């Protein structure tokens, strides 16, 4: 296999990696907010269910969760697993896993807000929804950005776990080529790609943090 074919295959894999990354964030960031509401709910049943969910997501390997989500339709519902479900399974597993982590980050941020901000908003007549979205959430986002950045960078690397259900993201592709060609080169190149990807992510997150640095 020549260099350009290898790079082409890896780049195709990279596109899948990017798709997993983007879709996971797209679903898990808002889902995490919902989960954090459940976690802070005054309803004890909701709160307990969400607590159990979060502890399972954080207490078991993501790789295991991927396999469970992938095979569940077959073993639980006796459905035939279609080829296209592989990718969907990855997004589902990643989204619910990362939502749990984001939920705990959101909760920490929300609970760190001084009560006085809620009270000031209430006395001014803001509704609860206005108070949350206009006053609380923007400040929470600023507070939690460093922790979110950590998770996002971990996610870039975690996308490689999709190899366990043979989704053709970059790591899966690199491993296949490496085996066929008996060479570590494809893995090295994949490593460089991951590194550059994360570098770009870090720069983007820095930009976002800078955007929020207009106040203290």
């Amino acid at each position, binding site marked *: 296999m020549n260099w350009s074919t290898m790079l082409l295959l890896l780049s195709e894999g990279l596109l899948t990696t990017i798709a997993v990354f983007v879709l996971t964030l797209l679903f898990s960031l808002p889902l995490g907010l919902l989960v954090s509401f459940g976690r802070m709910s005054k309803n004890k049943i909701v709160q307990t269910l969400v607590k159990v969910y979060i502890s399972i997501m954080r207490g078991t390997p993501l790789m295991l969760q991927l396999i469970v989500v992938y095979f569940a339709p077959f073993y639980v519902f006796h459905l035939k697993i279609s080829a296209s479900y592989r990718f969907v399974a990855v997004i589902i597993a990643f989204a619910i896993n990362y939502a749990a982590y984001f939920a705990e980050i959101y909760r920490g941020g929300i609970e760190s807000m001084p009560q*006085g901000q809620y009270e000031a908003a209430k*006395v001014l007549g*803001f*509704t609860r929804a206005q108070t949350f979205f206009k006053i609380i959430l923007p400040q929470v986002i600023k507070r939690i950005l460093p922790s979110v950045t950590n998770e996002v960078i971990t996610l870039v690397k975690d996308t490689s776990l999709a190899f366990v259900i043979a989704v053709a993201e970059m790591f899966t592709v690199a491993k296949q080529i490496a085996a066929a060609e008996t060479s570590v080169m494809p893995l090295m190149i994949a490593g460089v790609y991951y590194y550059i990807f994360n570098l770009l992510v870090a720069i983007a997150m820095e930009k976002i943090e800078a955007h929020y640095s207009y106040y203290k």
Partner: protein
Amino acid sequence: MSEILLECKHIKKEFDNLTVLEDINLEVRRGEVLSIIGPSGSGKSTLLRCCTLLEKVDRGEIIYLGRHVCRMNESGEKPEYVSKDQLRGFHDCFGLVFQNFQLFPHYSVLRNITEAPIHVKHMPRAQAQEKARELLSMLGLADKADAYPYQLSGGQQQRVSIARALALNPQILFFDEPTSALDPELTVEVLKVIRALAAQHMTMVIVTHEMSFAREVSDKIVFMENGQVQAFGSPDEIFSSDQERIREFIGKLSD
């Protein structure tokens, strides 16, 4: 005598079986400045929080402009507040200035002031901004409209928070120790603003430890102790009281 804006009748408030307010009766009339003084823990903040609906009372009635916010139920055992929607209507009646300002740090000074008029009162943005700028220049902050709270001194922040409250045209403005978080020089500038508001006949209820200021600016003074109103009267009446506790308290705080 001028119209009664706020009436509190037989207010009682408990926190986990600790009685913090006991049978408080209070009347605030239009144009009047009422100061609340008293030792720490006597329930002054709790009373303001009940009046501004941040805290629910365990007994008693709160009446703004003749309309009940809360009254005792038929059996006379529990207070009943009006519905959530109706409660919102009462937010026009009062404003509250906090000891530690509680400005919104992510908004500019101007936006701190205009946000509620625009989104709560649905005032057109341009009109809200014009009004905010008027308030800022009245409070000596005309050049700070675009600053963020962290760029201001404590005294400036407190004046912005007064402007924020005034922007909604409250009938009564409540202050909970507006100068306790400030250095003496900054205290002066905030007291000056409150004095100016008094001169414009703004109705105000002020919890303060500034005795000479309370004496000078108030029409009436309430002395609270152990969750009860121990004395009520004109500044001269309170400051020349022969009650031992009041003399002692005032003596300790005056220099």
